[in-house]
């Protein structure tokens, strides 16, 4: 089944990977003893690994191709269309109800089971769930590629930091203010980019993200520059003094509530008149207008409602770290959030949640691989996009049952 040509190709690919990972896997510099350690055995593993991976992938593809050809020729009956596992899990209540209950239970007792350190990581992951769901409205549902999403996150975080510093406003007051302020910024960004689409839109939003970061970095009188703002109070609970551990647990439950709230709202939005207009806008802008949808308003609501969540999470972020500076709002953040949306599946709420948890928790738990963890992380992204471009869970449209009349 596998020809000599394939083996030759596999050899080339193995060599290529060896060359690519050579500086990282083979050379190890010990700056103290000033010696270089050559780890040649690593080279062997990389070469062998990529050789076998290529052949396995090739064999799998060929088998699929042969089967497809036989089906086309009528030699083999087409297999009855299997519903993919992911869809079965979501649509079959017998499967998804217990799963959902188990998940909910797990997240509810999480702080009791794990250390404060783990809880802290989970809070971060949950924040990215909300960020992902917010960006999902803009990118996944409305199809507007936004590379500057982190700007709205920064707006929320600095809204809390500054309003607290100057006016002494508390967390709960600023939470909605931060969201609304970010939504306003979303509309401000939306106006100039209304006519842009695709790559052009991506570049302008990228610029917007950088502008916000650079303003925060350089306008010392306003934002305290690169040194940031510290001593931001943690979220309060009716004025009760809490120990650090307790306040982290409190923040965790707050974040859980926030995630539930976000899922509820985003889900309802997607299955509404406005949500449909967003999907239509993603599918075909011209047809969308010709069917009577106001393009301007639809785009602006998408930008505003997407930014709203980033603003809220920004406030929570400032309260969690008790410190904000511009270094937390680099382009990399936007890229990670975008990865969450694409990896999860454009427009799919469940997919985005899973992707956020995987993408944020994976690097943490890959610490066992220490220096290779980013390599593994990158490989996971590449493999996902090659073999499952539609994301972990492809967006599922609502179906309607119509009575026979």
């Amino acid at each position, binding site marked *: 089944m596998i020809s000599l040509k394939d083996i030759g190709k596999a050899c080339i690919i193995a060599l290529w990977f060896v060359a690519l990972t050579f500086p990282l896997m083979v050379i190890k510099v010990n700056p103290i003893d000033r010696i270089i350690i050559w780890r040649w055995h690593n080279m062997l593993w990389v070469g062998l690994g990529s050789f076998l991976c290529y052949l396995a992938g090739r064999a799998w593809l060929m088998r699929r191709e042969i089967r497809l050809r036989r089906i086309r020729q009528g030699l083999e009956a087409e297999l009855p269309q299997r519903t993919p596992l992911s869809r079965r899990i979501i649509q079959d209540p017998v499967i998804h109800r217990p799963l959902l209950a188990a998940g909910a239970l797990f997240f509810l007792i999480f702080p009791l089971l794990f250390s404060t350190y783990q809880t802290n990581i989970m809070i971060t992951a949950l924040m990215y769930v909300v960020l992902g769901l917010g960006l999902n409205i803009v990118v996944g549902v409305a199809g507007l590629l936004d590379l500057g999403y982190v700007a709205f996150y920064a707006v929320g975080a600095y809204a809390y930091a500054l309003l607290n510093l100057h006016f002494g406003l508390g967390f709960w007051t600023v939470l909605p203010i931060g969201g609304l302020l970010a939504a306003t910024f979303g509309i401000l960004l939306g106006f100039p980019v209304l006519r842009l689409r695709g790559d052009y839109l991506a570049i302008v939003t990228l610029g917007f993200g950088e502008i916000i970061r650079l303003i925060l970095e350089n306008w010392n009188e306003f934002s305290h520059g690169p040194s940031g703002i510290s001593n931001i109070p943690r979220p309060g609970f009716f004025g009760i003094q809490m120990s650090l551990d307790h306040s982290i647990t409190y923040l965790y439950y707050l974040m859980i509530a926030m995630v539930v709230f976000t899922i509820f*709202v985003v889900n*309802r*939005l997607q299955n*509404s*008149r*406005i*949500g*449909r*207009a967003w*999907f*239509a806008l993603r*599918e*075909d802008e*011209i*047809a*969308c*207008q*010709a*069917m*009577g*949808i*106001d*393009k301007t308003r639809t785009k602006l*609501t998408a930008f505003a*409602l997407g930014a709203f969540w980033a603003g809220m999470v920004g406030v929570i972020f400032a309260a969690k770290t008790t410190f904000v500076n511009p270094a937390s709002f680099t382009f990399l953040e936007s890229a990670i959030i975008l990865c969450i949306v694409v990896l999860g599946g454009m427009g799919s709420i469940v997919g985005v949640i899973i992707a956020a948890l995987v993408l944020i928790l994976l690097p943490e738990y890959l610490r066992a691989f220490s220096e290779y963890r980013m390599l593994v992380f990158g490989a996971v992204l590449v493999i996902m996009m090659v073999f499952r471009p539609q994301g972990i869970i492809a*967006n599922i*449209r*609502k*179906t*309607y049952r*119509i009575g026979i009349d």
Partner: protein
Amino acid sequence: MTPVLEVTGLTMDFGGIRALDRLDLRVNPGEIVALIGPNGAGKTTFFNCLTGLYRPTAGDLLLTPPDGGTRRLNGLKPNHVTMQGLARTFQNIRLFPNMTVLENVMIGRHCRTRARVLGAIFRDRRTRQEEREIVALSVSILKELGLGDMINEFAKNLPYGAQRRLEIARALATDPLVLLLDEPAAGMNPQETRELDELIRRIRDKGLSILLIEHDMKLVMSLSDYIFVMDYGKKIAEGTPEEIRTNPAVIKAYLGEDMDDA
């Protein structure tokens, strides 16, 4: 009788090229009017001007609903044109491929409904009621067009003829006064074309006026009450199907000059 749609002196320039040259056209209520002409004559440009996708250089587009009150359509955005009562289909099908058949039609109801963000989140009684009405109406349109048994399919998975009908269904959902069909029979087999012929008549009988661009002459001649012919952006003839069939200018435009000498 006041025409429901009246176009006078419509001109469209692209830079130095005049794509439409002082075009006049009328559609009377309840009429099926065809716009024909060789490839590149400017028929689709005409539709695009009419529906607000292009902004015409000069001329007037007037729409008169049955209750009177003529409205000018020039310079309106496409979505406002649709709201005024002009709905179209596209020559190269432009459905929303990754949405279901029903959702495609529900999109057509967008401009006739009002639910906002807060309504969507809280799902108050009015929003739920409106949503139910959208679904009910969309389903009834789909059933009428013979698409009732595939409402939950993705639009992209429909066979070609069904996609064409779905485009018409989507346009009908916007409650138009005039339905603009851009080559509805393109790529259809004779059987499908016959069904389309009946379908268009049925739509007309419900009181709509129809303006269609079509290359299938058999369909045009059997359907139309009145025909306009264009070539190189100009109107070269108009009249009933019988008049058009024998009009020398039309024959020249379609077949070229001096066929006998060739």
